[in-house]
């Protein structure tokens, strides 16, 4: 039995059928990405997997137990950072640490929060409020907050969505490093609209077809050694194969709605992320 299992999951909002027949398994320590077009139901799928929303249909289990609420061992990075604007970067992270490690001393809380903020390179800007930080810095705070609770499972919703290519690249590497440096297996499920990002970080990638009633493609494994360098992946044979496979799935998914324009991968990869 796999660590996380989604079996035949379906979710509708009123008459709008967002997901139907979604199956997904994650092994412990695995990094899995889901790519898909905007508004195809990626966030809905991730929130359901995390236990933040209940599906109408199907079952979700983590470690063999049915998921009914957000797990104590999980972290979630929201699509729009979701930092509390009245707290400084440091206070945002410390709040998470305090709530997770309730038996720690005040000093331990402080040290843990500072440690992770320094890890993402925010040591100097710790006392600033989110509205005084750039988009990339806010994203770093969100990442620090997620990792500072030392989770076993990470749910990441387009964690680098609103960033420029350069910052994106830096943070992708940082995320990859953090996952490997955790000293314990970190299972991660990431949503992205950027296929290259998925290839860089994942063990397996799935494509979510365009809704309504979106389903997942079979998984495409990425058997590239780590650490991976994003510039090398561009022409790597294996990476090219993965890209093509995903493109196939994403365009096949649209056959059910012929009237709609076919989503092509280039467009999806370049799509300007929409704030939820």
């Amino acid at each position, binding site marked *: 039995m796999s660590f996380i299992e989604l079996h035949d999951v379906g979710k509708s909002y009123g008459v709008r059928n967002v997901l139907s027949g979604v199956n997904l398994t994650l092994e412990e320590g695995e990094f899995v990405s889901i790519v898909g077009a905007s508004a195809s139901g990626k966030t809905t799928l991730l929130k359901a997997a995390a236990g933040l929303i209940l599906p109408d249909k199907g079952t979700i289990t983590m470690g063999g137990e049915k998921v009914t609420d957000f797990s104590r061992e999980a972290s979630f990075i929201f699509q729009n950072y979701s930092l509390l604007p009245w707290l400084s970067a440091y206070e945002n992270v410390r709040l998470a640490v305090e709530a*997770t490690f309730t038996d720690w001393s005040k000093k331990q809380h402080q040290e843990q929060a500072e440690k992770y903020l320094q890890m993402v390179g925010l040591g100097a800007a710790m006392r600033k409020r989110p509205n005084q930080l750039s988009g990339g810095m806010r994203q770093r705070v969100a990442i620090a907050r997620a990792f500072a609770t030392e989770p076993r499972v990470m749910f990441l919703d387009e964690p680098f969505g609103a960033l420029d290519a350069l910052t994106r690249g830096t943070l992708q590497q940082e995320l990859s490093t953090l996952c490997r440096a955790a000293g314990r297996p970190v299972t991660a499920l990431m949503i992205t609209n950027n296929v290259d990002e998925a290839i860089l970080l994942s063990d397996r990638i799935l494509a979510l077809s365009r809704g309504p009633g979106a389903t997942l493609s079979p998984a495409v494994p990425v058997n590239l050694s780590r650490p991976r360098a994003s510039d090398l992946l561009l022409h790597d044979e294996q990476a090219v194969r993965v890209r093509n496979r995903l493109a196939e799935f994403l365009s096949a998914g649209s056959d059910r709605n012929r009237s709609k324009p076919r989503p092509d991968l280039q467009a999806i990869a370049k799509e300007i992320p929409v704030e939820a």
Partner: protein
Amino acid sequence: MQNSLKTFALSLVGLFVVGGLWTFLSLNVAPDLPSPWRTWQESKIYVLNPWEKRGEMDQGIGLMTAYSLFRVAKGFFLAIAIGTPLGFLLGASPTFFKMFDPTIQLLRPISPLAWLPLGLILFRQSEPAALFTIALCSMWPTVINTMTGVRAIPQDYLNVARVLRLSPWKQFTKVWLPATLPYMFTGYRLSLGIAWLVIVAAEMLTGTPGVGGFLWQEYNSLIYSHILLSILTIGVVGFTLDRMMGFAENKLRTV
């Protein structure tokens, strides 16, 4: 800078226009209405010695204002002490809302003049009756705004609270309260404005010393310039209170 100077000059012009109209009315239309100059002549004793106490109802304008302000403060704090938690409950619990919203809508439009006699029957003294009336009339903007604020907390912040597994107390102090604070202060500002409106009515009816009580007494003694003095004082104090609350409100919004 240029602009604010212009605004200030224009507001002075407006003041002069109204003053001119007042003079015109007192000279040509209503001979009983004292002109601005006569008003000043007859009431300067109250203004120039604002803290002088000559008798129960014959005191400097500073003292009178202070009595009223003190009374308003008590009623206002009573109002927000009840109104804020009530607003939170109404905003957070749909059941509670359905239960009490109709009653609140019914109580909200009742005039202070209607509550005061009830207060007098209940408490048999003018002071608590006045507080009762102020609190009951000025509470509603706080209740409604707090409720709106709680409802308007972005789902994102609630999700954060859930994902971080915050305890109920932490959820309240770190998410709900700061998210609602700007709305609460809008409510407080409006409540204070109403409290100041109500105090005049309450003092007039109960005859207690204060700006409103003074106004009513001078009406009974037919000293019209003192009525005008009271009216001007009420306006200036009300304006100042509103500005102070508005300032606090803006401070919170920029956070």
